[in-house]
């Protein structure tokens, strides 16, 4: 039996380290080699999807290895309906991100591709870890390659953005480390078995109260910063705008999902009482994020910044879905994570393409692009509509399910959140109108070239998935429903056991 999860997780990172050894004179092989590794990783992750039994509760493709037995740390990885989609999203976006950097990153290629591939291992490790120690190792280790991607290959203000990104994330995650240790000792003290194993710890019914609340808050802070939940979002516009296109795609597409994934994977099953108790607070912050993100996006003069703030809004929807704690909301939240990864990833890709041609991202510098680059404009339209949630495309499915779930929990909040969709239409369509429609206002835009073959190859897979999820979401939601049902049942069982 091939340890498929481990192979998928570690292949990119090890290949990345190996690429560091490529001598200077042979650096022409770097881009194709890195892209090849990413594509192979994606292909290897496909058996996870096809081999995944959607009817089973629990983890599949599990691997158990000894690591530090005296401490209760083991190498335990596996996949369930929640992590499956995120693993696939990661392996899917990475080749696209690398391909998008083909023409735009010229400086220190070797370090760039190695960093990106090591980053992929870090992200996949976060999604497949079933041991809290192992999870924390990946969670923290992943910061460093992202720090380099922003800080070395980013825009003019990159160093500030990179440091801000690391410090924000560190503060949240070190408190989570204390909470992990507290949970470990509480469980060990109560049962005599000291372990960091997540499935074991998830069985533990912790008494509600101050200890559980504090642990929940420590975990939640780490994840809320990553999501980012309002008011912890201020690192995001800086990091997104300064990062190179490939970095922005990965940042928006995958990294933000690590926060929402953390809520699903750790906060809900480990601290169900506290999740319920703080649910209304998170709900409120999520709705504020939805509306605030949309409003701030509306007034952005810079396309990349607009897309960055729209992430705050979209991730607010995901958080709303997760904390509905019902089937529709949670499935919607999960599928919306994938949707946001695809549509925002695609938006960053396309903003990057236009920036490479024109060296500007200001909306005011464009206008009438349809006449100059019709193919680009058409694909841009699909992606824009997907991002604002047009029925028939992927964004609608997630947002609809989330709002159905949210309405059952709190109709007023759901109604407020719905305005976020309206504002999404405002800022996306208004931006699209100013950039693409009308007359060509600036001479510099008259000679822009339309999509190249490489760019087609990058965009077609994303747009295909955008349409596919929009038309037939069951291919993806079907894999997750059993897992989500089990999660809800677990939360309910644990909270009612404490009543």
């Amino acid at each position, binding site marked *: 039996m091939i340890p498929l999860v481990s192979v998928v997780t570690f292949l990119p990172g090890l290949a990345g380290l190996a690429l560091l050894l490529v001598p200077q004179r042979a650096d022409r092989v770097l881009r194709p080699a890195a892209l090849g590794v990413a594509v192979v990783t994606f292909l290897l992750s496909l058996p996870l999807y096809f081999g995944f039994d959607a009817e089973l509760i629990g983890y599949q493709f599990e691997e158990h290895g000894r690591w530090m037995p005296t*401490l209760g740390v083991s190498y335990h990885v596996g996949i369930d309906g929640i992590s499956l989609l995120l693993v696939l999203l990661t392996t899917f976006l990475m080749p696209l991100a690398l391909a998008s950097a083909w023409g735009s990153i010229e400086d220190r290629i070797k370090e760039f591709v190695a960093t990106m591939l090591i980053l992929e291992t870090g992200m996949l490790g976060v999604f497949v870890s079933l041991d809290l120690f192992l999870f924390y190792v990946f969670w923290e280790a992943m910061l460093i390659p992202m720090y380099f991607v922003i800080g070395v290959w980013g825009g003019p203000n990159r160093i500030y953005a990179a440091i801000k990104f690391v410090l924000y994330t560190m503060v949240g995650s070190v408190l989570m480390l204390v909470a992990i240790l507290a949970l470990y000792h509480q469980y060990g003290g109560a049962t005599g078995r000291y372990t960091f194993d997540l499935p074991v710890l998830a069985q533990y019914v912790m008494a509600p109260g101050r200890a559980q609340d504090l642990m929940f808050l420590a975990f939640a802070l780490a994840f809320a910063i990553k999501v980012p939940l309002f008011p912890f979002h201020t690192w995001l516009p800086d990091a997104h705008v300064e990062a190179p296109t490939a970095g922005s795609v990965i940042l928006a597409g995958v990294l933000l999902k690590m926060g929402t994934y953390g809520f699903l994977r750790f906060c809900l099953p480990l601290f169900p009482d506290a999740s319920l108790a703080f649910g209304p607070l998170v709900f409120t912050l999520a709705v504020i994020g939805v509306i605030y993100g949309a409003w701030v996006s509306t007034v952005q003069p810079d396309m990349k910044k607009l897309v960055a703030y729209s992430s705050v809004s979209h991730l607010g929807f995901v958080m709303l879905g997760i904390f509905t704690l019902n089937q529709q909301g949670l499935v919607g939240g999960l599928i919306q994570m994938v949707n946001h990864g695809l549509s925002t990833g695609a938006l960053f890709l396309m903003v990057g393409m236009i920036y490479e041609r024109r060296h500007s991202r200001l909306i005011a510098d464009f206008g009438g692009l349809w006449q100059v680059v019709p193919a680009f404009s058409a694909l841009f339209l699909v992606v824009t509509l997907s991002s604002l949630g047009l029925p028939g495309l992927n964004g609608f499915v997630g947002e609809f399910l989330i709002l159905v779930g949210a309405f059952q929990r709190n109709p007023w909040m759901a109604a407020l959140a719905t305005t976020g969709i309206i504002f999404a239409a405002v800022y996306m369509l208004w931006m699209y109108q100013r950039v693409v429609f009308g007359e060509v206002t600036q001479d510099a835009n008259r000679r822009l070239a339309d999509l190249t073959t490489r760019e087609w190859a990058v965009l077609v897979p994303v747009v295909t998935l955008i349409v596919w999820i929009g038309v037939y979401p069951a291919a993806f939601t079907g894999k997750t429903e059993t897992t989500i049902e089990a999660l809800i049942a677990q939360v309910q069982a644990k909270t009612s056991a404490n009543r």
Partner: protein
Amino acid sequence: MDAIVFPPVLIGPLLPTLVVLAAAALVLVLDVVPWAIPREVAAMVALAGMIGALLATLARWSAPGRAFRDMVVLDNFALFFNVVICYAGALIVLLSMDYLRRTGSESSEYWALVLLATAGMMLLAAAGDLVVVFLTLELMSLSLYVLTGLFKRELASGEAAMKYFLLGAFASSFLLYGIALIYGATGTTNLDRIAAAIASRPRDPLFGIGLGLLMVGFGFKISSVPFHMWVPDVYQGAPTSVTALIATGSKAGAFAALIRVLTVTLRGVPPDWAALLWVIAAVTMTVGNVVALAQSNLKRMLAYSSIAHVGYMLVGLVAGGVGGAGSVLFYLLTYTFTTAGAFGVITLCERARGEAVEVSDYAGLARRHPVLAAALGLFLLSLVGIPPLAGFVGKFYVFGAAVRAGYFWLAVIGVLNSAAAAYYYLRVVVFMYMREPEGAATTYASSFAGSLALAIALLAIVLLGVMPAPFVDLAQAAVAPLLR
């Protein structure tokens, strides 16, 4: 009147130290023999002394021995520290070889003094009597005072030596006064007998004051706040290889004695001293980190960062028990390799006007010397506590011990400190990877021995980070007998 009975002389428990002392003597003899001897020989003898001591230490593992009426106790605790100190000493010898030649200060005294200081540290870890603690502390400190002033032509080096000497002498007198008071209170200087004498009357004020003064002396040597004032000037002014020795070996030796004195003498006493250490730990790591944020000199920054790391180690001591003390031992192991590595990179960087000591001197290093930059980057990331490097596991154990012992908020202060520390460590990475040099660039001073030392340290921090379990078990097994 009783005749004076000489204790039997047992060489065994002293063997590791004797190897080092023999090497020191040999170095001095080689300097005065009439025929010409290549300069490299002294360095080789020093290296052989360190490796020999390491082997002697390993050979005596799990064979505890006591000598000179329990004045020297070579148990696994002492052996663990001896391993740390021997590694530190060997790395420093390797780093010094080309560094001294480059700076034109090669001399046999240097090697002899490094060996003598190392011998002091090793015996300090094995001291079972307060008199031996004092003697070995002085052997270590006096050697280090001289080494600090090795760059005779540089004002900073002389100034550092002077400050180190004056403040160190102060600390020693506090220590001696504390020993005298404890002797007055208990009638003995032997740790076991102090513990027995104090168990029946734990609130003896004379003993309390004596222990307090002893703590002042140790506070100086391990550089905990508020006794840390000498650290930045000495670390900055001393030759970098000597700074590395002060930051690693001397700290390990002093910590060994501190842990042994506290855990052995206070075995039967309720742990109210932990409350005091709690405050010292919290203040030490916070002051160290906050002041390090403002430093532009790399050696000075690492000096303040080393103060902060002492704070983390004190957290483990506050937690107490096998887990807490064991976590300090493991932390020192990781810290020694990381810090020796970080200072080691500085010894390998040179500029037209001398050493590359400003953080801005490292601008663009990654482009010209990627391996060197990556090495320094990894050492700094290990100091931040980024997994899977050794520094992370060290912090994980220390804070884990604190949480287990119920010092939840101390752990929170600790982790927030380590998050803040990321800023100044990563600032160096920013310069190396994200900025270009202004004016003359820093170049790599080619050195095989130095590169070998860095390779060993790098291997160690990766190994200790990925496979820490066996070493943690060793550390915990080493402290367990002390607590019995």
